């Protein structure tokens, strides 16, 4: 790094102070300031990241304004919003947008409720809590490619465990993957399985940061355990809830890997087709680059609608 020759004596001259107006002195002082010295530390990673993220987004937006498709290079002289008009009028896009919302809302809500429930159970001072937490969080350490294979087998119509279990209650067997009415629910259930351990960890961290005496106080007042949690403890987990909800919603918006891996192809069943899968399919299977870029922009705007308020909230809370 450029500033490695910076030495102890060098920094001392800042403190010593110099005569005003001497530009050489000022230049030297500037060169030794904290800003310049720390510049390589943050600016190198920042510029790499900025180029990839913001350069990428800008370029993507530009491509979405062209008619880029197939293997011809894009024509940047003729820019218009045709692709967006086309996308917003396309019934397929409207369907995948609806699926995206259903997946996001169902997955986020149930995962949060289950995560909170598990966190409260583990917070009741059980033994081997660390071990139990390790088991609950295990799915989160696995790749979606891997868990999709497990669930494909779980949902197998003839030999899957899911049908074997509900068969005990005289139900089924159902074709979880093949039936368009069931497949989205099946996918959401599998994703809940993978993520509720994560939601639990976030809530558990929130629960443990609360002082113990509140619980004692509520008990003395004669409140039941359930009431204590519902009235006293849960309202204080707002910050954990917001964090968990945002992470889960963002994940749901971009959930591509699980769906692709489960069905082994770009074209997933219509009922589970979401913006994220449609975008990748339009681009990398069908080479409709500009159209895919437009869908990606729609997806980005939806994500920003979740992230921006969240970051603002964090900022207001003083935790950013």
């Amino acid at each position, binding site marked *: *790094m450029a*500033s490695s020759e*910076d030495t*102890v004596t060098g*920094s*001392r001259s800042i403190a010593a102070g110099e005569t005003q107006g001497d530009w050489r002195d000022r230049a030297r002082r500037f060169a030794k*300031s*904290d800003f310049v*010295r*720390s510049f*390589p530390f*943050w600016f*190198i*990673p*920042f510029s790499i*990241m*900025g180029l*990839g993220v913001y*350069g*990428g987004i800008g370029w*993507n937006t530009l491509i979405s304004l062209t008619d880029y498709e197939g293997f011809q290079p894009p024509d940047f002289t003729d820019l218009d919003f045709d692709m967006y008009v086309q996308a917003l009028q396309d019934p397929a896009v409207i369907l995948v947008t609806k699926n995206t919302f259903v997946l996001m809302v169902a997955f986020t809500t149930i995962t949060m409720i289950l995560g909170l429930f*598990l966190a409260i*159970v583990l917070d*009741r001072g059980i033994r081997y809590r660390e071990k*139990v*937490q390790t*088991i*609950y*969080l295990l799915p989160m350490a*696995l*790749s*979606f*490619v*891997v*868990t999709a294979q*497990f*669930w494909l*087998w779980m949902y*197998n119509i*003839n*030999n899957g*465990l899911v049908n074997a279990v509900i068969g005990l209650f005289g139900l089924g067997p159902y074709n979880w993957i093949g039936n368009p009415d069931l497949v989205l629910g099946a996918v959401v259930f599998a994703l809940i*399985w993978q993520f509720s351990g994560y939601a639990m960890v*976030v809530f*558990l961290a929130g629960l443990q940061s609360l002082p113990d005496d509140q619980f004692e106080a509520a008990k003395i007042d004669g409140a039941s355990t359930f009431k204590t949690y519902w009235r006293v403890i849960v309202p204080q987990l707002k910050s954990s809830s917001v*964090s968990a909800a*945002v992470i889960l919603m963002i994940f749901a918006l*971009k959930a*591509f*890997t699980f769906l692709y*891996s489960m069905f*082994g192809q770009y074209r997933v069943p219509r009922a589970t087709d979401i913006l994220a899968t449609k975008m*990748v399919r339009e681009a*990398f299977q069908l080479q409709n*680059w500009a159209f895919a870029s437009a869908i*990606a922009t729609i*997806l*980005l705007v939806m994500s920003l609608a979740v*992230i921006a308020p969240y970051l603002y909230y964090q900022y207001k809370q003083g935790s*950013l």
Partner: protein
Amino acid sequence: MSNPTNSRAESIARVLPALDYSKIAIYLLVMTFAAFFIAPIWTGLVTAFKTTGAVTATTPFLPPGPDGFTLQKWTTAIEYLSTGMTNSLLMSFPATIASVTLGSTAAYGLTLVDWHKRTQFAVLVLFMFGIFIPYQAVLVPLSDFWINMVGIDGLVGPVLGDLPFFTERHSRLVAVTFTHVVYGIPICMLLFRGYYVALSDELIEAAKIDGASITSIYRRIVLPLSKPMFGVVFIYQFTMIWNEFLFSLTLIGSSASPAATVTLVLSGLGSDLSGVDFGLRMAGAFVAALPTLIIYILFAEQFAKGLASDN
């Protein structure tokens, strides 16, 4: 003379109040959910040891009997996935090291050095958005950038082709590696930032008064102090990169490519026109998950810490 059944009932009654029913209920719940989280993994594990006949003939979550047991699925899976495993390792290690290092220096420059609070905050916010944006929003430019603009195939392909193990098509793996560095920096930065904000100022202030430079404070004080955090971030980031699929799929393209990562190979393993060979698929899933499983079993606590602090 007391009736023996009566006294037994009494002794049971004496024991009963000592048992805390709500505790039993909680432990039952804990066990049920443990079973719920383990079931798909366990079912996959036993299925991987079954012959193709036993896969369909036996109960899915029971281990195979002696006549239905085979290790052949595992050897086949390892055979298919070994190149993918090597590719994934070759990609994950440098990408993790680079993004963790850059994340650490970025966090240092933005938290422990005060140069302009408001600009620092603006840069931080830009990093934060970088964590959350859906990668779909950069995929088209990304493949355009590596394939058409950089021309990665022509640039590093011929060089790699001359090396042992590598082929010309490994140029795409190089592109994936760099891509992971770029998009891994924000989350690493955030994880380190949380740690650096909580770090005691005293040592750094003292070093500043002694006239230590920004660089030497980082090298002599911050770096040694953040060793445990490097462990946490490394484990977290390695798992993320190893498990990642979207960049591999879009940049490398086909699971048949010699540069395909393990996740890419697994997504098509053991399926043909006659259906999916679930025994092979399950064995492959475990082989592909092996490095992350080992890391998880050894460092579960660090992994949980990484997850809990990424919000």
